[in-house]
């Protein structure tokens, strides 16, 4: 077993895929130097033909990658800032994503878009702190949010190998997570398969990304009162509805914690699906960013609009105590 950080896992996944498959190339801003520590060393190893430092032209290089993918390459694009995904929403949602259907299956667009440090990094304020994974799930772009080093490795690998566009969010709050992993056992993690990090019988907590750690913390805090199951969907689209149903069938109670805006967010979709299709014994709850949140700068304000472990603790307690 070796100690592996989430960030190193991303770095390792990209390096391994580039070594394995010549059609994989990476584009992005300041990736030659590797300012986000994911592309570190790749330029020296593979050269500028496969590791392309791009001008600040996100819209052009995103569709440029689409064209390269249509012609047989497997581009990976790093976005330094999650909010840049708003700028290229046209290029991903309206171009790359639609080619397969619109061409009647003639074309495929295997591009991976990844954001190392999505969500809040404290102090980066309104235009650098969003978590728009729900937008991509909404339009049907494959969307993954790994929570652990081995899943960061495995989902990045899968995203690159997938024949469709995939967006990978690596939450800032997860980049520092470390785990003991068997490096030889690292491998692809399938899309649409969730993971139960901790089994329980009283309540299912669905946690997205870095909030898996908060959920595990709550489960531990409440261990002598309630048995909490922590379910990590890992990929939001496709979503492991069968896995969630199996968990809820056992617990009958559901709380979702999701670091994105409440209105039309992934937490709302999870609750709606559970209400439609699963047997909930008490009303479920969700802990999310508020409606329409724009992250304010000051630390107290920034923290006030992000779901925290304390609020999750309260929600879980309330759901567990409410009567059938």
């Amino acid at each position, binding site marked *: 077993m070796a100690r592996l950080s989430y960030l190193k896992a991303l770095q390792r996944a990209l390096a391994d895929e580039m070594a394995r498959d010549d059609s994989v*190339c990476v584009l992005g801003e300041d990736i030659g130097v590797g300012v986000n520590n994911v592309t570190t060393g790749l330029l020296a190893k593979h050269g500028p*033909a496969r590791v392309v430092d*791009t*001008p600040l*032209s996100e*819209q*052009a*290089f*995103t*569709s*440029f*990658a*689409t*064209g*390269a*993918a*249509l*012609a*047989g*390459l497997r*581009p990976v694009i790093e976005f330094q800032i999650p909010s840049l995904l708003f700028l290229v929403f*046209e*290029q991903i949602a*309206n*171009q790359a994503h639609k*080619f*397969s*259907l*619109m*061409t*009647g*299956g*003639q*074309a*495929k*667009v*295997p591009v991976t878009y990844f954001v190392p440090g999505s969500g809040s990094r404290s102090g980066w304020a309104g235009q650098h702190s969003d978590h728009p994974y729900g937008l991509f799930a909404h339009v*049907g772009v*494959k969307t993954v949010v790994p929570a652990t080093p081995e899943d960061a490795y495995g989902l990045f690998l899968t995203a690159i190998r*997938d*024949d*469709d566009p995939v967006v990978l969010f690596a939450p800032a709050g997860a980049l520092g997570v470390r785990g003991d992993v068997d490096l030889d056992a690292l491998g692809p993690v399938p*899309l*649409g398969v969730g993971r139960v990090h901790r089994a329980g019988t009283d309540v299912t907590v669905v946690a997205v990304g870095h909030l898996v750690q908060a959920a595990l913390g709550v489960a531990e805090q409440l261990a002598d009162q309630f048995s909490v199951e922590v379910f990590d969907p890992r990929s939001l*689209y*496709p979503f492991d*509805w069968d896995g969630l149903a199996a968990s809820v069938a056992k617990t009958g109670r559901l709380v979702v914690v999701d670091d994105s805006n409440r209105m039309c967010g992934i937490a709302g979709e999870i609750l709606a699906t559970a209400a439609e299709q699963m047997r909930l014994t008490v009303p479920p709850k969700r802990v999310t960013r508020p409606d329409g949140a724009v992250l304010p700068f000051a630390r107290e304000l920034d923290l006030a609009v992000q779901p925290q472990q304390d609020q999750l603790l309260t929600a879980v307690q309330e759901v567990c105590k409410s009567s059938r």
Partner: protein
Amino acid sequence: MRERGDMDTGLYRTMRLIRRFEERAIELVHAGEIIGGIHPYIGQEAIAAGVCAALRDDDVITSTHRGHGHVLAKGADPVRMLAELTGRATGLNQGRGGSMHAADFGKGIYGANGIVGAGGAIATGAAWAAVKEGSDRVAVSFFGDGAVNQGVLLETFNLAALWRLPVLFVCENNGYATTLTVAQAVAGSITARAEAFGIPAVSVDGTDAVAVLTAARDAVARGRAGGGPSFLEATAYRFDAHHTWEHKARVRYRADEEVAAGRSRDPLDVLGVGLPEGVRAELDAQVEATLAEAVAFALDSPRPDPARALDHLYATGLRGRDGTGLLDTAVR
């Protein structure tokens, strides 16, 4: 002279095919057989015909909302193209794309595109892929004068020039972005925008197919030889509406005199008058036969199965959840 004769004949045949294809398609719009309408390419045929005559089958093009001419000139089967426009399962895109997304990847046609200026970066990325695999393929991006005000296209000029990629940008200046004139929309000159990035740019008469082909050959040769991108502005007049909805909406933004003057320089006549006696009539007859076959095939073709409306949404065959209850959600 024989070579010149063959070239003229080929260009004329392509232009005539596009012209009559569009006219038949407009009839089918009015008959309700093509839903949603089309953006007729009539008047601009010499541009698609001339540029595509300089290309090989493995070269790539990206097209526009007014894309039928490019798709046909690059070699797509007009029969399956018309089946696509009429929403048939036998269409190029199995009825999933229609007029604005017609594509034939086997012919390097990366599709018409519904967003103005969107094809430029896609073509440039395909050109990059060609260079990486050691091929001398080139890519051509067609767009209109409206697209030169799209930021992403200007960003793309920079990437193409910076990385010396074999891409030809063809700006079809038909004078209007829907109803807005070039004078109302474009500051400076169109070619100067490309020149600002160091991209060689020329303007040609886009009603003269031979002139277009000559300019395109230069640009394509430069691209194949590693000389980087080129820019071609081809001016022509759009004879018909921006879109067939205008036939009903009766919006007026072009004076009758202007339209008459524009139509008086017909690209088919510019080339056609020079064809030997009888040749033009023979080519016209061939095109009529092809289109008669295309219309019959399209209208006789089966419509796609509604239960399979979202087939091909994912290249991997992933199936999302149904929402209407009408889909066959079994994984194929």
